[in-house]
């Protein structure tokens, strides 16, 4: 009992979650091994060098950022215990936690933070490169204070300090080396509650409790084991039989979720993706006739029943999209909505665009490159084929694999496909890139569709440089309206991913990062 009380007093940042646990009448229990899954197996676990979904899930247990974010995207202290922003929005001062050690025993200081933010991430990660280029000067007045001075005000700057976006890495293991090939890439060393223990490729990754973790008494779990289970039905079975206690992200296909929801030993959480807010859309290549005509894009949008997609294909996991900015993101404008499902209006629009049906009732034929990441996207493709047939548009499905998909979308060699992108809580960080003219590039996840509207460009630029949130909101509301009127892409759904866990596993989803949080407060009841 005494140990528990000391834990509560010392671990101030964990108070909320502990309090929650107390409220449910369960005190955290120390000990136990969590067995979960990892799909697909990442090539390396060093965050930054590799940033694919599964890497973020596992690396955030070993690495931490300065901040984390609540479900409403308020910043929470992690390695930074406090921070201030100058009135002109250019100077960010972070006070760091003291007594933070890396897994190799060396202390983490302001030097490591400056190295990570100004050298490591800009070198290896495209997203960090674009944002951290705004830093004019980084200084460390003392070992536990970091001051970033920006070239211009950048209101969403704090959102880049989450562990998944800018983890603090040890300077002494990377400085002077090629960051991609440094030995530490094979044996990650961070400040997180769990340290890398073992990786048997194709089999499992094991993380062990870091005894010198800076929150006394935490983490509660002895180990976390990520098992590599490549088949989705085997993963489902692993949860059902108790061979694993947690699944995340794409581990379980949406159509398997209802069955798992009814199991008494399992709990399904759909929250915990607020920071990422993934939005899925039909990506149209504007260069392919007649998709360059806004009337055609609007008609295709109206031909799609988004409620059907969410309810029947995704079994209620996710929400119909309302526009280009997800409703869980900052600066979402709830007053603006996409035109509803209306096949008759869609037909009228296509008639008006001069696309009359031929003798077979076909107005035009386009191809659809099915997203190869899981079975569910083929089902969506089949639904879209049916939906478009109602308005006289023939959709030919092409299947492909991940490598070809990325190459073809990057080279603009497609008519339509599905794309889903993380929005990272702020339209400047996650939405702008898909619509501005300056980002039309032959690279995946840029504005590959080729949409271009000078007014949209100007509004995104204004929102980017405005230092006042209200000004940014006005620009984003205008841009939302323009994008919906132009139907730049056909936004389908705000995606969510089920986090399915054993009921004995507590505190799994407590922040807007969900399974990407450090798990230092996760515990198993006996």
């Amino acid at each position, binding site marked *: 009992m005494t140990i528990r009380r000391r834990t509560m007093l010392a671990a101030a940042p964990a108070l909320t979650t502990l309090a929650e646990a107390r409220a449910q009448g369960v005190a955290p229990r120390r000990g136990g*091994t969590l*067995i979960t899954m990892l799909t*697909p*197996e990442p*090539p*390396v676990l060093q965050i930054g060098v*590799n*940033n*694919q*979904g599964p890497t973020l899930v596992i690396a955030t247990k070993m690495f931490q950022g300065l901040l984390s974010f609540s479900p409403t995207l308020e910043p929470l202290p992690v390695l930074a215990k406090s921070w201030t922003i100058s009135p002109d929005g250019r100077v960010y001062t972070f006070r760091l936690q003291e007594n933070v050690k890396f897994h190799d025993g060396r202390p983490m200081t302001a030097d490591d933070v400056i190295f990570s933010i100004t050298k490591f991430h800009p070198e290896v*990660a*495209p*997203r960090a*490169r*674009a944002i951290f280029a705004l830093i004019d000067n980084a200084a460390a007045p003392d070992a536990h204070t970091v001051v970033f001075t920006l070239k211009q005000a950048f209101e969403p700057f704090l959102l880049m300090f989450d562990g998944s976006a800018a983890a603090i890495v040890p300077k002494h293991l990377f400085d002077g080396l090629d960051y*991609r*090939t440094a030995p530490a*890439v*094979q044996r990650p060393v961070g400040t997180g509650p769990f340290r890398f223990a073992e990786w*048997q*490729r*194709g*089999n*499992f990754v*094991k993380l062990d409790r870091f005894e010198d973790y800076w929150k006394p008494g935490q983490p509660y779990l002895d*180990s976390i*084991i990520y*098992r*590599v*289970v*490549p*088949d989705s*039905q*085997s993963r489902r*079975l*692993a949860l*059902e*039989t108790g*061979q694993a206690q947690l699944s995340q992200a794409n581990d379980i296909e949406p159509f398997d979720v209802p069955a798992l929801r009814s199991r008494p030993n399992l709990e399904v959480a759909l929250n915990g993706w607020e920071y990422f807010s993934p939005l899925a859309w039909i990506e149209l290549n504007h260069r392919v006739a007649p998709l360059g005509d806004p009337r055609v894009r609007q008609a295709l949008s109206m031909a799609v029943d988004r409620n059907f997609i969410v309810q029947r294909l995704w079994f209620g996991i996710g929400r119909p999209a309302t526009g280009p900015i997800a409703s869980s993101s900052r600066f979402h404008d709830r007053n603006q909505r996409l035109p509803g499902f209306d096949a008759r209006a869609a037909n009228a629009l296509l008639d008006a665009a001069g696309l009359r049906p031929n003798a077979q009732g076909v107005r035009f034929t386009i191809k659809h490159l099915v997203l190869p990441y899981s079975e569910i996207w083929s089902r969506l493709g089949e639904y879209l084929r049916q939906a478009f047939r109602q308005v006289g548009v023939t959709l030919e499905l092409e299947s492909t*694999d*991940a*490598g*070809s*998909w*990325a*190459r*073809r*979308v*990057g080279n603009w060699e497609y008519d339509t496909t599905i794309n889903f*992108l*993380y929005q990272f809580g702020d339209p400047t960080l996650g939405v702008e890139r898909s619509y501005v003219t300056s980002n039309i*590039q*032959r*690279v*995946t*996840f*840029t504005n590959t569709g080729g949409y271009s509207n000078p007014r949209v460009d100007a509004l995104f630029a204004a929102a980017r440089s405005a230092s006042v949130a209200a000004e940014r909101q006005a620009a984003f509301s205008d841009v939302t309206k323009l994008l919906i009127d132009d139907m730049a892409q056909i936004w389908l759904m705000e995606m969510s991913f089920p986090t399915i866990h054993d009921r004995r596993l507590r505190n799994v989803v407590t922040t807007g990062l969900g399974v990407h949080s450090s798990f230092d407060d996760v515990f198993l009841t006996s």
Partner: protein
Amino acid sequence: MELGKLPGFLARRLVKAVLVVLAIVVCNFFLVHAAPGDPASVMAGQAGAADPLFLEQLRRQFGLDQPMHVQLWIYVRSVLSLDLGFSHRQQMGVAALIAERLPATLLLTGAAFAFAVVGGVTLGALAAQRVGRWADSLITVLALTFYATPLFWVGLMLVLVFSVWLEWLPSFGMNSVGLGLTGLAHVLDVAKHLLLPALTLGLFYLAVYARLTRATMLEVQDQDFVRTARAKGVPEGRITRAHVLRNALLPVITFAGIQAGQLVGGSILVETVFAWPGIGRLAFEALLARDYPVLLGVFFCTSVIVVLFNLATDLLYALVDPRVEVA
């Protein structure tokens, strides 16, 4: 077999084998590069964010900025010096990656192979001896069923029965991670995990061997030398073993040679369904990720093994059947 001819035979066959493997290496090189996309674009796709600099850096690091013939020359040169290259994607040497997966694959395919050969030949011999009776019918029907049933379905059904209903065996993985088992407990644990995938993989071949053995034994049973042996008063058991089975084994050896060649390749399907950390999955994932060096490395190893087993099969013919000569 005349032992005097053996060294010359082996030398000729080995020279041919090296040429064949080299040709395979070159073909494979062009084949894997013919697939659209490259490792850099795959990694960009997986990262969810990319810029031109990112792609350029990766392509330079992976050596993909070199012209194709230069890449081919570098690869062939390193293979000739028995260096399988480096996977920049996984930041590990290809030989190390393959060596890491090889034990698991050999354990699975070896177990399935032994199970199939021993079980298949025994069942086939039993059926041939009791031809027309209920034991024969039972074995024939079972063999036909396994022969005709798709592999993945057998796997799923085995999991359903033994993991879900009976809860006797684990449904995936190679060992219980995190229990820290050692010694005998570890061996038993791996054996428990091995049972279902090995059965799944072995049942098809078991059926093939059973049918082959039965058919050829029936053929041999009526030949003159068997009748002679019987007339001489040789005991029935010895006739079956020494006269019938030995002569019936040739087609079985041919087929076993083919199966043995696949030992190293593993099985993508079974390894995926049972999450077995073998070579098949390594190759499949390397294909999806366009991890060329790993893919080529696996292809190289499997082609070497296939060529070697073909050679071994030829030698084995001569051993089992003195009428066959090496030449």
